[in-house]
């Protein structure tokens, strides 16, 4: 490969020999087309006309007054399909088209990335198959149906823990024998090189717009930027525009689940170094190196790994990562719903919960929270928790 895909010591490409040529081909195409005028114009066109970019940077006045900080929300929740995921699926989908690939495969946990991929498959008329743990298929029937309505085929995965990590395993297993014709569209800044670099590239648009807007509105940079971290793509998307400005605090909210002593998905806060799904990063694992199951109320943060660049930013102390529990996330959800009339995705609710905690200790600061997705998909779960019958 041309680049080594390392962030400090993290990252790399720990994959079976059979996948190396596929990754080399992908890296080459990515490096070429990211500089290509026609490619970039087409991507910008779709981001604008199809996905709904640019998204607003919304000053939440009620919540600001309530929490004693000046709080802005980057409204990725307003994008088509309801989350930032579409920035990446458009980018990679278009890349697959330029590479002449005839089929897309993807993994999905709850279904957000699956839906964003299915929709792009339909837009670009590329047949799409989505691997999904059979447990998740059961829990997220509605999203399975939504993918199918967009013409994608959902393949239930019934080995291992039957969740996201097993869906990723099976997508890789598919790709080993299909890479000639198939692009594997990974949904976050994880996996082997070039994925972490490439997915970040396609999500950087969040940070670019945010920086421009905040400078326009405030005449200065924010004191803190907060985002939730699953694999880490929405966080890196927004962090990337501020990482060189040392005075801006970068804060990642991990799925704290039921607390670090119980079940959780806080990979950086409580995991250890390891190699999962092609890169060296932090993972949740037992003492013998077997991968553990993650838990978070939000399916998007329910993953025992994390993108290698986050491991690097954490080890350098440039970004800080904190667990936000299910309970704190639900409080964040309610805060934003009640004070601003915005229903955040449960993933994004972790960032809101984090903002509340941050504001308590840092009155008067200016904060940008990345609202990575909308909460329509999660109202069922909330109703159940609040013991409301729908």
């Amino acid at each position, binding site marked *: 490969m041309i680049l080594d895909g390392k962030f400090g010591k993290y990252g*790399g490409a720990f994959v079976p020999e059979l996948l*190396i040529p596929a990754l080399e081909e992908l890296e080459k195409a990515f490096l070429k087309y990211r500089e290509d005028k026609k490619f970039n114009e087409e991507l910008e066109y779709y981001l604008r006309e199809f996905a709904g970019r640019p998204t607003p940077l919304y000053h939440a006045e009620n919540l600001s007054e309530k929490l004693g900080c000046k709080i802005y929300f980057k409204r990725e929740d307003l994008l088509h399909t309801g989350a930032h995921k579409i920035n990446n699926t458009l980018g990679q989908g278009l890349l697959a088209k330029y590479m002449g690939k005839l089929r897309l495969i993807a993994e999905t946990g709850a279904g957000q990335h699956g839906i964003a991929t299915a929709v792009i498959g339909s837009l670009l008329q590329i047949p799409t198959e989505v691997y999904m743990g059979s447990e998740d298929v059961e829990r997220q029937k509605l999203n399975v149906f939504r993918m199918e309505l967009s013409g994608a085929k959902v393949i239930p995965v019934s080995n291992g823990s039957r969740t996201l990590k097993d869906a990723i395993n099976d997508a890789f297993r598919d790709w*080993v024998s299909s890479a000639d014709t198939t692009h594997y569209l990974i949904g976050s800044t994880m996996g082997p090189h070039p994925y972490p670099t490439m997915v970040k590239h396609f999500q950087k648009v969040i940070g670019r717009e945010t920086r421009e807007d905040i400078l326009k509105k405030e005449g200065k940079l924010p004191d803190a930027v907060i985002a939730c971290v699953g694999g880490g793509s929405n966080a890196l998307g927004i962090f990337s525009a501020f990482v060189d400005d040392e005075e801006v605090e970068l804060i990642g909210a991990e799925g704290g689940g039921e607390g670090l002593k119980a079940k959780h998905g806080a990979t950086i806060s409580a995991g250890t170094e390891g190699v999962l799904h092609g890169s060296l990063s932090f993972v949740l694992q037992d003492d013998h190196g*077997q*991968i553990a199951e993650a838990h978070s109320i939000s399916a998007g943060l329910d993953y025992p790994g994390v993108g290698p660049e986050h491991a690097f930013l954490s080890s350098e102390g440039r970004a800080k990562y904190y667990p936000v529990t299910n309970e704190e996330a639900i409080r964040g959800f309610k805060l934003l719903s009640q004070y601003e009339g915005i229903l955040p995705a449960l993933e994004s609710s972790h960032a809101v919960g984090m903002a509340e905690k941050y504001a308590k200790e840092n009155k008067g600061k200016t904060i940008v929270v990345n609202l990575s997705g909308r909460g329509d998909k999660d109202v069922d779960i909330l109703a159940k928790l609040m013991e409301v019958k729908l």
Partner: protein
Amino acid sequence: MRIETYEDAFNRVKARNEGAFIPFTVAGDPDFETSLKIVKIFVENGADALEIGFPFSDPVADGPTVQLANTRALDAGMTVEKGFQFIKKVREFTDIPVGVLTYYNLIYKMGIDEFYEKAKLNGANAILAADLPPEEANDALHSAKRYGVQQIFMAAQSTSNQRLDEILKLCSGFLYVVAVMGITGARNELKDSTIELIERIKCHSKIPVAVGFGISKQDHVSNVINAGADGAIVASAILNIITENLHNKEEMLQKIGKFCRELKGVTKVIR
């Protein structure tokens, strides 16, 4: 006990005008004691070298059969530590080469150096991590050299000649040739492309080459050996016998023994 090197083993087999028969099983599948008996059966029924898997929760290079074997072994309490104890026990009854086949996280988690040291102390000849390509193998190679353990890499149809030469510079013991562009699992047919691959690789390789993935029948074994391969590695077809006979271990062992004899019986070079 003096441990036989891969070089000696392949020479021993070659002197008889044969290819090597190399069966694979996952250490601790379905439990430690039965697994040990399975390996003993391998040795008594013609194995020229052994491949022992250390089970991992997320084996991306493996199909359903090996995944199931990994799960059984992990459920029975297998760990890397016990894997090394397993090899030590295997060394009580055989001196033929033993290769450990695993995934890199298990090595990384234990500590790379410690893993290789334990491999050496307990009698393993070589290590192959299915998700460790040469680009990422500097630390592993360093420890391998330090403790005198051989590092095995894979090559496949997708591997260019140039890349093959790079891999061969680092690989020792034997080169593991992946017969199919896919994951592990028993297959009905041996493809022509596999034969072409073996012929291409034999032109480049000064070390022995052994072919695995999908080798499941007598004619597969004899065809890869007569195409020039120095050895045939058989995994899923054996693990299927384990899966199908979990309720009758005596019968399981008998069937595995018979299957091994059949496969070893067709390793003669008849070109």
